[in-house]
């Protein structure tokens, strides 16, 4: 990426920063040279109220004659101060009120402030992001996740922050690009949110002669009004959810991303991948690749949002001891390699580089090894509390769900009821925490229609428990997946391959899986 590992900024970023400074300097110089010669000793960055009153007195005469120069000069200075976070822009707003009156003053201040905030945003994007990435990667990813989660209501939150004096505007300008607030939301929030504050200040600027100190400016009434406006803007997010209509659910479902399986054809028949808010059962004969698929899903759920994934964590409940951590490591390496290949054209890394390390992926898989059905029931019950504490778990894989229930249970009716309780609990988790539950199941031989056939274990007593059911089988020399039961997906079949990188598409020249 053309980056010196010690210094987090690349050459072009430093060049861009210098360029911005230069253009502002140029603007100021242009103004300076086009103004008529006279005594400009009063021209300095306003620091106190007296400075403003001075400036106002001196500039009033120029305003009508040299409006353009004054406007350009004003804007340049304002933008300069905002971009480089120089305090004192409040004085500039007062000045605008004093020089141009209410309406034009507010328009000018809002324009200049938005332009300044935008340029500060871009500068922070270029310089601040890589800097903070390298200094505080984990705190940063925490905040990024918080912002990503509130994506739909982000405008309301930003408006609230702009309107009320909760956070200083400079901080908002600098922090927004670092936590991935998109520019259009930032722009809208700034241009609308600054209007009330600008209005208050500009109005005060008109009566600047009467002002004793800045404290008079923000009296209790003004601040209360600002807070009121802020609360109005943020209220929609606080209203609690009532029962949903199907329309709400549709829009929610469309926004919820599915978990990719790694094989595009398989994703296609699944409607994009394994759906959250649903329980999916996957069954097949030994050796077909159920555990491989389970591990692949536990890895793919962690693909960061910026790369098109869910950025979540995984819970893996292992009842047979089939989870091999070396294989998980192999699959993770394959997933990361594919991500880099896909997003090769982006020069800058979309996320902190430390997130795309195999160890971070491994640390996000929570593993429970259950050795009896009691432990399995206990684990599912305990998950209720666990999921409250770990809100970013997006998939629960149980490998395999019926193993311990096929023996040791003397009372079969009791077994059915216990299984039913477990399955309804899992179903509840999907709805409440918006995650996917994947149950891997074994096959067994059953005497059906006079011959022995392979069917899913505990099939009949268990069949109502899952939303979707997928069967993996051999078709000649290829592995196939077949949608056996689903309320929304068509019955279809897709081929897939188990490679050293994990589950992938079947390549047309189905040549050898090379051993590493």
């Amino acid at each position: 990426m053309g980056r010196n590992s010690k210094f987090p900024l690349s050459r072009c970023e430093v060049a861009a920063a210098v360029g911005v400074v230069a253009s502002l300097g140029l603007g100021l110089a242009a103004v300076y040279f086009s103004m008529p010669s006279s005594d400009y000793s009063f021209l300095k960055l306003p620091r106190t109220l007296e400075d403003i009153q001075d400036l106002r007195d001196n500039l009033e005469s120029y305003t009508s004659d040299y409006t353009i120069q004054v406007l350009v000069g004003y804007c340049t200075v304002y933008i300069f101060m905002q971009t480089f976070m120089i305090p004192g822009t409040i004085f500039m707003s007062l000045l605008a009120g004093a020089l141009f009156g209410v309406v034009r003053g507010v328009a000018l201040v809002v324009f200049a402030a938005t332009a300044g905030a935008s340029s500060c945003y871009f500068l922070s994007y270029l310089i601040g992001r890589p800097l903070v990435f390298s200094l505080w990667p984990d705190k940063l990813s925490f905040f990024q996740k918080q912002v990503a989660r509130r994506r739909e209501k982000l405008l309301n939150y930003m408006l609230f922050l702009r309107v009320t004096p909760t956070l200083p505007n400079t901080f908002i300008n600098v922090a927004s690009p670092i936590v991935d607030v998109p520019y259009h939301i930032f722009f809208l929030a700034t241009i609308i949110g600054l209007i009330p504050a600008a209005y208050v200040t500009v109005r005060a600027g008109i009566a600047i002669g009467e002002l004793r100190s800045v404290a008079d400016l923000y009296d209790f009434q003004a601040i209360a009004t600002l807070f009121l406006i802020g609360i109005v803007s943020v209220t929609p997010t606080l209203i609690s959810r009532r029962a949903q209509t199907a329309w709400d659910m549709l829009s929610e479902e469309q926004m919820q991303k599915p978990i990719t399986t790694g094989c595009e054809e398989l994703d296609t028949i699944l409607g994009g991948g394994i759906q959250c808010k649903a329980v999916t059962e996957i069954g097949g004969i030994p050796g077909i690749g159920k555990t491989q698929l389970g591990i692949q899903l536990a890895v793919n759920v962690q693909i960061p949002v910026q790369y098109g994934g869910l950025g979540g964590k995984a819970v893996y409940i292992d009842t047979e001891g089939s989870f091999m951590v070396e294989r998980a490591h192999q699959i993770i390496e394959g997933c990361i390699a594919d991500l880099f290949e896909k997003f090769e054209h982006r020069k800058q890394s979309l996320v902190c580089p430390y997130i795309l390390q195999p160890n971070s992926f491994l640390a996000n898989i929570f593993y429970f090894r259950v050795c009896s059905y009691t432990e399995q029931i206990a684990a599912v019950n305990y998950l209720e509390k666990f999921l409250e504490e770990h809100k970013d778990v997006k998939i629960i894989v149980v490998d395999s769900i019926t193993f311990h229930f096929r023996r040791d249970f003397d009372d079969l009716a009791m077994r059915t009821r216990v299984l039913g309780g477990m399955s309804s609990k899992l179903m509840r988790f999907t709805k409440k925490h918006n995650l996917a539950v994947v149950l891997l199941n074994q096959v067994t031989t059953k005497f059906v229609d006079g011959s022995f056939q392979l069917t899913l274990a505990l099939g009949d007593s268990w069949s109502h428990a899952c939303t979707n059911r997928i069967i993996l089988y051999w078709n000649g020399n290829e592995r196939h997946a077949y949608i056996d039961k689903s309320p929304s997906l068509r019955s279809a079949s897709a081929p897939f391959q188990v490679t050293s990188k994990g589950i992938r598409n079947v390549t047309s020249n189905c040549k050898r899986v090379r051993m590493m």
Partner: protein
Amino acid sequence: MSNKLISQMGLPSSLANVFSARNILTAKDALSLPEFDLMALLDVDRDQVRTAVARISEIACPPCRTALSLMEDRALTGGYLPTRLLGLDRALRGGIPFGALTELVGPSGIGKTQFCLKLALLAALPSSYGGLNGRVIYMDTESKFHSTRLIEIGRSSFPHIFNSEGMAQEMAGRIIVLRPASLDELTESLQQIQLIILQHDVKLLIVDSMAAILVGENERSTTGQKQHSCHLPLSFLKSLAEFSQIPIVVTNQVRSQNNYEVVHYPFQGIQWAHAVTIRLIFEAHSGQRFIKISKSPTSPAIAFPFLVKSSGIALLSDEGLEVTGSEMSTIRCEGLNVLVEGAEPFPHLGC
């Protein structure tokens, strides 16, 4: 975990008393009942039952670990017993893994016991020669273990070790041979083995073969019992492997009716198939014998041709043949004298 006593779980004493009054003493008793049944039995309301069950579950639940900590543990223990067969070790990424169940399956007389003998030797060798420097427990159910053959293998493969004074004796002395005659004896030995493993630094457990014991057992016991009897050693072995982090190798037999039959699942059928981590199929066809990696989490299905020599098993080629499709799990026994046991296979066994 499931046998933890409710009285020691820190529930409020009134609730704990109610549980013990109704004879629900362990976590297993409490969690085997659905919620409503518990409510009816204990005569308490739903919220109390819920909090009690949540508390019991929290304690009975196995500890949560991240995959990262599993990886770190793995790195500490080493992880593999190399088989010294280059192609096989490369495919399995090291060899027979620790902490997992490896199954060798194939028709009788093909070479499984030879392979086991070699493995036993390799585990007993000192670490300077690439071994595990530990003891080996060899459970021989069919009286196939011959110490003379063992020494012969040792002499051919590692002449410099075995020809030196006393080494042969010491190596052979590290291999403990048990001969359980029935399933009960086997289960009993298994229970004791857990202790032996810890005390005597056992590095490998070989069970040769499971099938012999369970055949006899199945012919004797009733249908209901069959389900339980073959699951018990299976799950026990698995948890033993994980707990003590040693490799456990189990051999299994193929039942077939004809001499050249293609069999899909070995004896003990599908339940076994799901439970083992690595399955190596020994088969014969086209005049050669093959070791086929049928089930492995890290390797695609590959078959290596082999021969049985005086030094044990030797691969004829280190680049295996690829195997695809349903051939992965079939076992061909052409041209070998297959031992036919009993009249028909037992597919209706849940095993």
